[in-house]
């Protein structure tokens, strides 16, 4: 009995020490050079990334790419924060929006891509000299190259439009709101299926889409809030009318647009394959977001650009940076862009999308994608400001939510949002 205790007392610590030592030996064993590459957790993007990584690994046995989708979380940004803090961040990362790239750049987490050889040529080759300017950091460098530009559009249920006797979607707020009486069934069918949600990123798809369409140009500019203007107030009034009258749901709903529960909603191209797969035969019409009454007929309609790019992290060993950069350049080749467009349906961030014959096949196969490609020149990405997440959360709390629930007038809500954001930005120095 005594011996058994003794064995246990010594055995457990010895086993623990042995297991730690063996792990250390495994970790210490030399492995082939490897770059860790994280991408957006999206099934279509997964297919694309697997293909290009497999090709790279076949052709470059000296330096392997270890690819995984970004682990699940409330947002990719939170997962990336956690990974950087815990020292498990990748070397190459996609799904980074402009403002988040600026947040990471501020803390010296990223390598400026414009300092790497061949950057200028790559940008010219992709005809994105103008596009890349949206992504220039206030310090003059480029830390993120956009992969795709999803110009947010609005989608209308064709069957409902037919029932309403309309051959094209309404263009202005008045035209849309005048249909409410015929469309809305309280708590069952809405004019616009855009349930209010409090996440900071949600404002991209409600306020900012309509704000840019109303002629707004900036959410933040020169380190200050820049939405307290006619466009901002007009866009916010439109949304308040929708929520106040029950034309849009104030909270979560289980209804889906494709099951006829709304006349319209905002849409990115990532929904095209899902609708085709799960609701074959469902017909819809795409249109730019609605504009204020009196908006000139022939003026271009701007919208929010849900655009994500690729960054190279500063944790990448010096000797591996050229290889990582080579991979980035290959990832942006014309052939890979065509493949990306075919598989994901999301327009690559290129200026020659409609003009380059290489994309003609994809565009002719899916007319819906053409609509999104047309919107690329008019799509405005989030600002290059390291506090996009904070300012959009403040905007949500101080301005948007009170406005949705009718606790503030639009003018007051917008003013309060502007003051709170400016105070916050001033406190950050």
């Amino acid at each position, binding site marked *: 009995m005594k011996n058994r*205790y003794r064995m*246990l*007392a010594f055995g*457990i*610590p010895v086993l*623990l020490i042995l297991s730690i030592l063996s792990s250390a030996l495994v970790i210490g064993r030399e492995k082939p050079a490897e770059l860790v590459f994280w991408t957006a957790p999206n099934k279509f993007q997964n297919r694309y990334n697997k293909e290009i990584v497999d090709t790279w690994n076949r052709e470059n046995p000296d330096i392997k790419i270890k690819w995984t989708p970004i682990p699940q*979380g*409330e*947002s990719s*940004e*939170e997962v990336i*924060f*956690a990974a*950087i*803090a815990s020292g498990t961040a990748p070397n190459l990362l996609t799904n980074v929006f402009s403002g988040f790239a600026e*947040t*990471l750049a501020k*803390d*010296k*987490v990223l390598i400026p891509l414009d300092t790497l050889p061949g950057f200028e040529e790559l940008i010219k080759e992709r005809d994105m000299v103008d596009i890349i300017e949206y992504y220039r950091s206030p310090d003059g460098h480029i830390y993120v190259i956009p992969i795709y530009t999803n110009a947010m559009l609005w989608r209308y249920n064709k069957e409902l439009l037919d029932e309403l006797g309309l051959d094209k979607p309404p263009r202005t707020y008045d035209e849309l709101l005048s249909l409410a009486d015929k469309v809305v069934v*309280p*708590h*069952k069918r809405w004019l616009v299926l855009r*349930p*209010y*949600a*409090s*996440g*900071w990123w949600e404002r991209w798809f409600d306020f900012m889409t309509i704000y840019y369409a109303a002629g707004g140009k900036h959410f933040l500019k020169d380190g200050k809030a820049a939405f307290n203007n006619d466009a901002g107030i007009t866009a916010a009034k439109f949304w308040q009318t929708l929520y106040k009258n029950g034309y849009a*749901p*104030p*909270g*979560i*709903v*289980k*209804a889906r647009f494709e099951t006829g*529960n709304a006349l319209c909603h905002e849409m990115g191209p990532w929904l095209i394959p899902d609708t085709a797969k799960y609701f074959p035969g469902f017909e819809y019409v795409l249109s730019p977001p609605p504009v204020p009454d009196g908006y000139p007929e022939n003026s271009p309609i701007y919208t929010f650009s849900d655009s994500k790019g690729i960054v190279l992290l500063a944790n990448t060993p010096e000797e591996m940076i050229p290889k990582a950069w080579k991979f980035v350049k290959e990832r942006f080749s014309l052939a890979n862009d065509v493949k990306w467009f075919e598989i994901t349906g999301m327009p690559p961030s290129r200026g020659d999308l409609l003009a380059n014959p290489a994309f003609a096949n994809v565009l002719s196969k899916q007319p819906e994608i053409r609509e999104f490609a047309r919107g690329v020149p008019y799509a405005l990405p989030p600002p290059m400001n390291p506090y996009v*997440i*904070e300012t959009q*959360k*403040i905007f949500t*709390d*101080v301005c948007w*939510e*009170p406005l949705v*629930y009718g*606790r503030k007038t639009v003018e007051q809500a917008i003013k309060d949002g502007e003051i*709170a*954001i400016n*105070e*916050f930005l001033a406190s950050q120095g």
Partner: protein
Amino acid sequence: MRSKKIVKWGILFVLPYLVWSTIFWGIPFGWSFILSFFKWSVISPTHSFVLLENFITLIYGSPIAVSLFVMLRNTLYFMAVFIPIVVFGSITFALLVSRIKRFKSIFIIGFLMSYFCPGVGYTLIFGEFFAEDGLFNNLLMNMGIHIPWLSDYRLAMVSVAIIVIWKCIGYYGLLFMAGLQAIPPAMHEAARIDGAGAWTRFWKITVPLLNAPLVITLTLSTGMSFALFTEIFMLTGGGPQKWSHTFMYEIYTQIWTYGNAGYGSAVALVTGFIGFGLILLIRKLVEREVYT
């Protein structure tokens, strides 16, 4: 001599647990304590000493930080709904199940399952129930009633409490069942002979003798109230109007949404102290020595 030897062996046996606790509990706690006096972004290599600034911000709030009093109000509101219902509900559950003659264990396991269900899974299902056009509103629609379960600031926390009550009632009920089984039947028998009715026996014998499970249940449910996260994270996002913004949600948001590890640590410390203090107070007020 012999007792010294026993102590030596005892220490050896306890050592793995002590090492484990030091590495995975003690060091993080100490690190968190130190961090709470610093301003530090989780991704930044530098951090600055700010003394009590994080604690002052916690009291007054800021554009991106919810004040201590708002979080405390929300937690107390949740406790006021959750604790009375879960305690009475689980006592009722225990009394009902203890009367079941056959298949008792099936009922117990059935109710207990909710406690071990993954939070994300059941919250998603409840999200469907509480939706504007969800199951509950569809049922109520026949009576011409519509309840904004999650979009009304007065109701959001009540809806969350309903979910947590569903989760906990089986487990707490089991604790009360164990308490009921520990009451000697002779006590009830003697009281009955003395002419005490069922109601009197329940209040004078059953309830006082359930003090131990009551204290455990109150401790667990208070801890649960201060650790409320998954349901908030997935359903309300702390809203509407911050009425469901809890301590845990604030800690998570500060550290992982804004990267404010120093401030998040200060909130975590204060949350721990308030929760621990409240549990101590409840035990002092409720705990009694009970002899059967």
